[in-house]
C-alpha cells in the first residue's frame, strides 16, 4: 500500500510495464470499460447498501436524546457476509481519504516527508474508524416498532429506502409499485395508501429494491471469494503438476480428468444439498457453504491452464538460471514462473465470477441455496417464477443476473483480447 510508482526500481519493473500495456489495451476497448464501470458501480452499491436501504434512521431524536440507531444495528444480526461488507463500508472512505491525502501531500512537497504524512493521516484514520466503531456499539437499542413509528412521524433521518432486506411491511404484502391500498386507520376512517416501496414487495412484505441491493452483496461475495478459493487451489495444483512433472503430473492430471467428467453444476448441487443438512454446518450461513463448495470443485479449469503455462516455461533459460543459482523450488515457482503464467488464469477467473454468480442463483432458484430471509437474486427469481403475477420481482432480479453476468463476460473478453499479443495495436 505504501509503495508508490516513484519507489526504487525493483526487478519486477518489467512486470509493471507489462500490466501497463495490458491496461492500455483494455482502456481502448470501450465495451470492456463500460462493463468495468458497471461492475465498480455494483461494488459501490453493494458496499454501501445499508446507506441506501436500511430500516433504522441515521439520526433519531428519541426520548433519551439523540441516538444513532443505524450504526447501532449494523452488526446486530448473526454473523454473515454482511459484516464483512459493513466493515468495508466503514473503512473504505476514511481509508481512501488517507491514501489520497497522503499521496497528494507527499508528492513534491518537501515540508511533508513521507514518514510524517503516514503518521498524521494514520492518526486521523484511526480516529474516524474508532468513532464509527464506537457508534456501532454504544447507545440504547431502540425497539424496531418505535423506529418504524419515527419514520411515520418524520422524526429521524432515514436512508432513501427506509427498509432493510428483512424488514416486513404488513401493510403491503406482495404489492407492485404504485399500488394503492385501502385500509382503515385508528379512527375508523378509510384511507388510501400508495405503496411506498419503489419496486414493490414480496410475499413477506419485504422491499424488493432493498433486496436487490443486498442481493448484490451475496452475488459479489460468492463470485469473488468462491473464485479466489478455486484460483488459489488451481494455481497451486496446476503449478505443482506442470513444474514437477512425472508421477505428480500423472496423478493430478487423472484427478482433473475425473473431476471434468462430471457436470460441475451437478456436483455442486449434490454437495450443497448434502452439506446444508449436515449437523455441524447447521449454524453456518448457507452462503459460506455455497462459496466453499464452488471453491473446492471448480479448480480444474485453472489447474489445467496453469499446468500448460508451467510446462511451457519450465525449460526456459530464466528458469534454468534460477535453478543454477540454487533457488528453492517454491521461490522459482512463485517468483519466477508464476508472474509469467498467471495471465490466462486471470481471464478464466473473470469468466469464473460470472459462472459462480450463475451457480449461486441456480442453486437458490432450485431451493438448495440461500434461504428466504437472506436476499439473493436467484431466490428472488424463484419467487417470481412461482408467482408469475409478480412481475416486479421477476424482471428486476433476472435483469440484475443478466447484466452482471454480461458485464463479467464482456470484461473477461476484453481482458483476453488485451492479453493477446496478436491483437495488440
Amino acid at each position, binding site marked *: 500500500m505504501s509503495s508508490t510508482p516513484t519507489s526504487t526500481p525493483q526487478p519486477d519493473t518489467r512486470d509493471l510495464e507489462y500490466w501497463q500495456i495490458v491496461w492500455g489495451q483494455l482502456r481502448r476497448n470501450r465495451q470492456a470499460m463500460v462493463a468495468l464501470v458497471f461492475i465498480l458501480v455494483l461494488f459501490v452499491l453493494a458496499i454501501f447498501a445499508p446507506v441506501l436501504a436500511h430500516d433504522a434512521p441515521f439520526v433519531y431524536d428519541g426520548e433519551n436524546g439523540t441516538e444513532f440507531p443505524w450504526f447501532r444495528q449494523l452488526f446486530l444480526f448473526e454473523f454473515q457476509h454482511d459484516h464483512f461488507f459493513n466493515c468495508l463500508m466503514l473503512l473504505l472512505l476514511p481509508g481512501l481519504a488517507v491514501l489520497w491525502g497522503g499521496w497528494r501531500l507527499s508528492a513534491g512537497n518537501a515540508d511533508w516527508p513521507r514518514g510524517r504524512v503516514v503518521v498524521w493521516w494514520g492518526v486521523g484514520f484511526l480516529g474516524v474508524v474508532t468513532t464509527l466503531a464506537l457508534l456501532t456499539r454504544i447507545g440504547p437499542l431502540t425497539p424496531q416498532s418505535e423506529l418504524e413509528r419515527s419514520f411515520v412521524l418524520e422524526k429521524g433521518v432515514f436512508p432513501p429506502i427506509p427498509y432493510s432486506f428483512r424488514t416486513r411491511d404488513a401493510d403491503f404484502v406482495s404489492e407492485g409499485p404504485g399500488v394503492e391500498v385501502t385500509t382503515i386507520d385508528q379512527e375508523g376512517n378509510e384511507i388510501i395508501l400508495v405503496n411506498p416501496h419503489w419496486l414493490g414487495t414480496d410475499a413477506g412484505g419485504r422491499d424488493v429494491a432493498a433486496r436487490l441491493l443486498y442481493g448484490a452483496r451475496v452475488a459479489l461475495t460468492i463470485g469473488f471469494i468462491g473464485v479466489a478459493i478455486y484460483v488459489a487451489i488451481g494455481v497451486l495444483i496446476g503449478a505443482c503438476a506442470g513444474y514437477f512433472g512425472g508421477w505428480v503430473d500423472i496423478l493430478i492430471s487423472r484427478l482433473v480428468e475425473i473431476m471434468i467428467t462430471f457436470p460441475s453444476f451437478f456436483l455442486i448441487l*449434490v454437495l450443497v444439498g448434502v*452439506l446444508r443438512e449436515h449437523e455441524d454446518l447447521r449454524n453456518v450461513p448457507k452462503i459460506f457453504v455455497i462459496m466453499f463448495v464452488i471453491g473446492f470443485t471448480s479448480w480444474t479449469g485453472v489447474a489445467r491452464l496453469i499446468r500448460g503455462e508451467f510446462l511451457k516455461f519450465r525449460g526456459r533459460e530464466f528458469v534454468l538460471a534460477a535453478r543454477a543459482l540454487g533457488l528453492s523450488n517454491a521461490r522459482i515457482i512463485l517468483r519466477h514462473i508464476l508472474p509469467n503464467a498467471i495471465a490466462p488464469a486471470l481471464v478464466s477467473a473473470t469468466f469464473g465470477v460470472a459462472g459462480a454468480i450463475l451457480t449461486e442463483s441456480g442453486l437458490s432458484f432450485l431451493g438448495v441455496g440461500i434461504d428466504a430471509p437472506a436476499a439473493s437474486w436467484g431466490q428472488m427469481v424463484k419467487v417470481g417464477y412461482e408467482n408469475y403475477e409478480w412481475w416486479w420481482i421477476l424482471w428486476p432480479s433476472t435483469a440484475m*443476473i443478466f447484466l452482471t453476468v454480461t458485464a463479467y463476460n464482456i470484461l473477461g473478453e476484453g481482458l483476453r483480447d488485451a492479453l493477446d499479443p496478436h491483437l495488440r495495436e
Partner: protein
Amino acid sequence: MWTYILKRLLLIPITLFGVTLINFVVIHMAPGSPIDKGMGSGQGFSPGDIQQDTDELRKQFHLDKPVLFNPNGFLDHREKTLRLVRIILSHDEPRLSEVIVSLRKGESQVEALSQVEALGEEWEIANLDDTARGALEEGGVALETFARSTTKLIYATAIRRLRDLGSWSVPTLVQRLDSDDRNERIVATSFLALATKRYDQKAHEGVNEERLTELVAGWKSWWQSHQYEYQYGWFRKLGVFFGETQYALYLWDLMHLDLGLSTETGQREPVFDRILRHLQVSLVLMVISTILVYTIAIPIGIFSAVQHRTLTEQALSLFLFVLYSLPSFVGAIILRHLFATGHPWDFMPVDGLTSPDAEWMWMNALERVGDYLWHLVLPIVCLTYGGLASLSRYARTGMLEVIRQDYMRTARAKGLSERVVILKHGLRNALIPLITLFANLLPIMVGGSVILEHIFSIQGMGYLSLQSIFKNDYTTLMGVMVITAILVQLGILLSDLLYAVADPRITYD
C-alpha cells in the same frame, strides 16, 4: 483404430472408479440415513414391524457397514466391550442396571416398565452426555420387551451398535463369562447371543441362578468348538478393512451391473429401471438440441466469416453475445413467463411433456405426437440456445482463421467456385475444433438440464437427481452419477473418434 477404442473403453472403468469414489464420499457426508428418514413417515405400522423392517433394510443397503474403511479387525475391542458391560452394570447410572437385573430375574415387568419411563422422562434424550446415552442405549438391549413400546429409538441404536461391533467382541465377552460379578455374567450371555445373532428372547427372560449357570456352561462349550472362527489372521483383517465396507460392496454390485434398489419409501424400485425411465426423456431433449446446436451454429459460423464486418454480421454477433450472456435458466424463465403464463401470451403449454391426462386420453396417435412435439418446443429452445451461442462463436472464429489461410487463396486461384472453396476447403478444417467441443457440451447440458427440467416440470434425469437429493435417496443419486459419468465418457470417446474422421492427419494406430 479398434485397439485404440478398446484401450479407451478399458480406461472408462478406471475413471469410473474415481468418479464413484468421490461421489460416494460426498454423498455419505450427509447425516442420518435414508432408512431413518423413511422410518418417520412409516405410520400405521407397529414399532416392532418397523424395527424389523429397518434392520433388514440396513442390511440390504449395507448401511450397517462403515463407508470406506472397516477398521474393526484392527481395533482392540476388549476395552470397548468392557466399557459397554461396565456401563450397564453401572457405576454411572445405578438405577438402570437395577432395572436390567430385575428384568433378568423375571421380576414384575410392569414395575420395571414404569421405572424405565421415569428414567426416560428424567433424562432428556437430547441432553444426555455420552456415557449416560451409552448406558441408556445398551440398557435398551435388555429392555427389549418394553423398548418397542417405550424407547424404540434407543432400542434400535443399541441393537445396531452391538451388531456393528459384531463378532469382533465375542472373545472379550467370553472372558467375561468367568466374572465374579453375577450381573456381569448375565449381560455377557445376552450380549454373546446378540453378537452371534442367536438371540432368543425366551432363553433370556427371567434368568435365575440355575438357568444362568446353564447358560454360561452352554456358551463355554460353544466357545470350545467355535473359537477358531473368531480368531482372524492379518490377511482376513485386511480383507475386512477394505472389503466389508459400503463402498466395496457397492462396487461389487456395480460390477454385476446392479445399481441397487431405490431407498425411497414405498417405492423400492430398481434404480436402473428408474434411471432408464427418466433417461429416455432427457435423451430425447439432449439429442434433438445437440443436433439443432450443430446444424444452426455451423451455418452461422460460415455466414459470419463470409460476411465479416458487415452490418448484418455485427447485429448477428451482438445477438449471439446477448444469448451467450443470458443464462439458460433465466432465459427459460423469461420464455415461460412470456409465452406460457398469460403475461402477455399463453399459447404455449406450461408443464410437462404431454397435455393433462384428461385431454391426452382422447387423442389419437397423430394428435399425441403433435402434442408431444408442441410441449418439446420451449424446453428445446432453451436447451439449444445456450450451446448455440457459445458454439457459433467458436465456429465463427474457426472459420475466420481458416479463411485467411494460404490454401484458401490457392483454391480460389485454381478457379474453384466460392461455394466449393468455403464449404469444401474451409469448413472441413474449421469443423475440427467444433468436434472436440462436443465433449465439453455434454456435461454442461446434463448439468444445465437440472434447472431447465425443474422449470418446465419435465421428469428427466435432472428431475430425478433433484428429487433424490431432497429425499436422501443415496442409491438413486449414485446411480444417476454413475450413468452420467458413463455417458460423458462415451461422449468424449465419440468426439475423439469423430476428430479422426474429420481430420485425416489424425490416426489412432
